[in-house]
């Protein structure tokens, strides 16, 4: 990395650290939770954008991969990691012990979801058309129902991310720093992946699969790559969700959640990373701030979708990026 690159990373780290320390002091816990959820929604939406927006596939079960990440990382923490965290905490100061531990929990969730993505993606993406939509939809439901029947992760009761036999290990973390650092990494990784000459393969497949193959793009492989990367980050988002809420239940990963994520990417503009970020942030915050709407949220989303489709069929930003050249100069 260049010198300006390192300076950027250092600046980001400082800002995140300041946020980490400051926000809990100025925000009440309710708003703090919303801010965290926005970060998680951003990670999930940006990763889905790689598949639906840049590669032109239609996945409508992204929450299924969040579920895999959430439960696997939670189980990892409870059954394996808690002991390590306790051991770390005994020799390291609290925050450092966490810094040493949490990447492992997140990676466990991400890798598990990526493997699930590979298993679902390979058969579904070989075929053209809507098979992926059907496969992802089915997968998300199957996973949800499977989890409900696994007692080790609480089954229908939900799963508490706490290990009773390791009192020295606080598995929850509500750090803004962590969530937003991961969100930033997600955005940087995915935008670098797609905004490069090699990354044009994703958009080539979206635009015309036959033409893409004619210039040497292995279309199926490119689609599977996009899908596995997206699944990984969805898993990480799920892992963050599990550890920040401290409790997971399959209800959080039902079809409504998958649908919400599709709304984020369509509304933000298929093929726009900043569009997905914007839509995820606004649409995560809005319903929380407009409580009382309850189930009407669904109606609101549908209406929003319809209205956007009529007024801006290409989504908020289309395929453009908000201030992306600026960002790219800093991060590139």
């Amino acid at each position, binding site marked *: 990395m260049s010198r300006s690159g390192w300076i950027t990373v250092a600046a980001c780290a400082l800002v995140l650290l300041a946020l980490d320390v400051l926000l809990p002091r100025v925000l009440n816990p309710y708003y703090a939770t919303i801010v965290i959820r926005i970060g998680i929604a951003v990670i999930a939406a940006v990763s889905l954008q790689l598949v639906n927006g840049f590669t032109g596939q239609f996945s409508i079960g992204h929450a299924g991969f969040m579920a895999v990440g959430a439960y696997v990382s939670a189980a990892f923490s409870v059954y394996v990691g808690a002991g390590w965290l306790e051991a770390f905490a005994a020799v390291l100061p609290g925050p450092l012990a966490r810094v040493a531990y949490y990447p492992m929990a997140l990676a466990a969730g991400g890798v598990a979801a990526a493997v699930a993505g590979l298993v679902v993606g390979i058969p579904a993406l070989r075929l053209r058309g809507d098979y992926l939509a059907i496969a992802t939809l089915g997968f998300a439901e199957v996973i949800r129902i499977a989890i409900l029947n696994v007692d080790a992760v609480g089954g229908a009761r939900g799963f508490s991310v706490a290990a009773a036999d390791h009192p020295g290990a606080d598995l929850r973390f509500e750090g803004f720093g962590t969530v937003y650092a991961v969100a930033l990494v997600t955005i940087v990784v995915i935008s670098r992946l797609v905004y*490069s000459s*090699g990354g044009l393969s994703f958009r080539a497949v979206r*635009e015309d699969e036959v033409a893409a*193959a004619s210039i040497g793009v292995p279309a199926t492989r490119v689609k599977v790559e996009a899908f596995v990367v997206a699944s990984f980050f969805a898993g990480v988002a799920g892992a963050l969700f599990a550890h920040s809420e401290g409790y997971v239940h399959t209800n959080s990963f039902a079809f409504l959640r998958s649908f919400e994520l599709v709304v984020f990417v369509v509304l933000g503009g298929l093929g726009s990373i900043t569009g997905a970020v914007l839509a995820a942030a606004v649409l995560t915050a809005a319903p929380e701030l407009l409580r009382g709407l309850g189930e009407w949220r669904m109606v609101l989303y549908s209406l929003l979708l319809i209205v956007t489709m009529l007024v801006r069929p290409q989504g908020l930003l289309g395929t453009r990026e908000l201030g992306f050249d600026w960002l790219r100069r800093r991060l590139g």
Partner: protein
Amino acid sequence: MALLEIENLTVRFGGLTSISKLDLAVESGAIVALIGPNGAGKTTAFNVVTGVYEPTEGSVRFEGRQIGGRPPHAISQLGIARTFQNVRLFRGLTAIENVRAALAAARRSGSADVLRPPRWRRREAELNEQARSLLERLGLAREADAAAGGLPYGEQRLLEIARAIATRPRLLLLDEPAAGMNPSEKQALRELVARLREEFGLSIVLIEHDVRFVMDLCERVTVLDHGEKIAEGPPDTVRRDPRVIEAYLGTGGGAA
């Protein structure tokens, strides 16, 4: 050994025979034409050579290698590029992105794209430079940053050729590159094709309806009708061949 050797090729779709027992050889460095009336099987032949369709029978060899039935991206990587009869650009990408995609397709590295070491930067700059110079050679330099889907039809056809050449092929297949062009544009295209062959050391097969178009451009012409080869040879001889004249008159497409 010829660069491309098609032997006894038959392609059937259900009961319909699109190509029947076709033999065709393309020598290295040659420009040959594939002509014939509508539905003769010309595009089907391209689709088999580029892996879009599998041969029902017979063999397709490129540089001595059997390629019939391999997937299209693998065949592209072996050195065969093509354009499409109904232009298939990446319409939502810019002209230069269309070319860069083709330059980079066969050698992608996701980890390099994400980590972006100095070597990645150099290569990226190189690809950009190459893409620009290719566009320049096809007279598209000014359109580099325009959306491909918004270009005038003639320029879209040229961009498709640029994109095909960007894969560094040894064999280039052009499916009706002159379609919809007026006589002066056709003349310019003829000169361009001849020049591209020299500059890039290409062998070229082009599909065309009009025998006159290929007269001084191609050394050899192969004529298909109803999936069968009915004539082959220098353009001069072929256009006088009674079977060729009949094939065209018979379908009402009086182009010969």
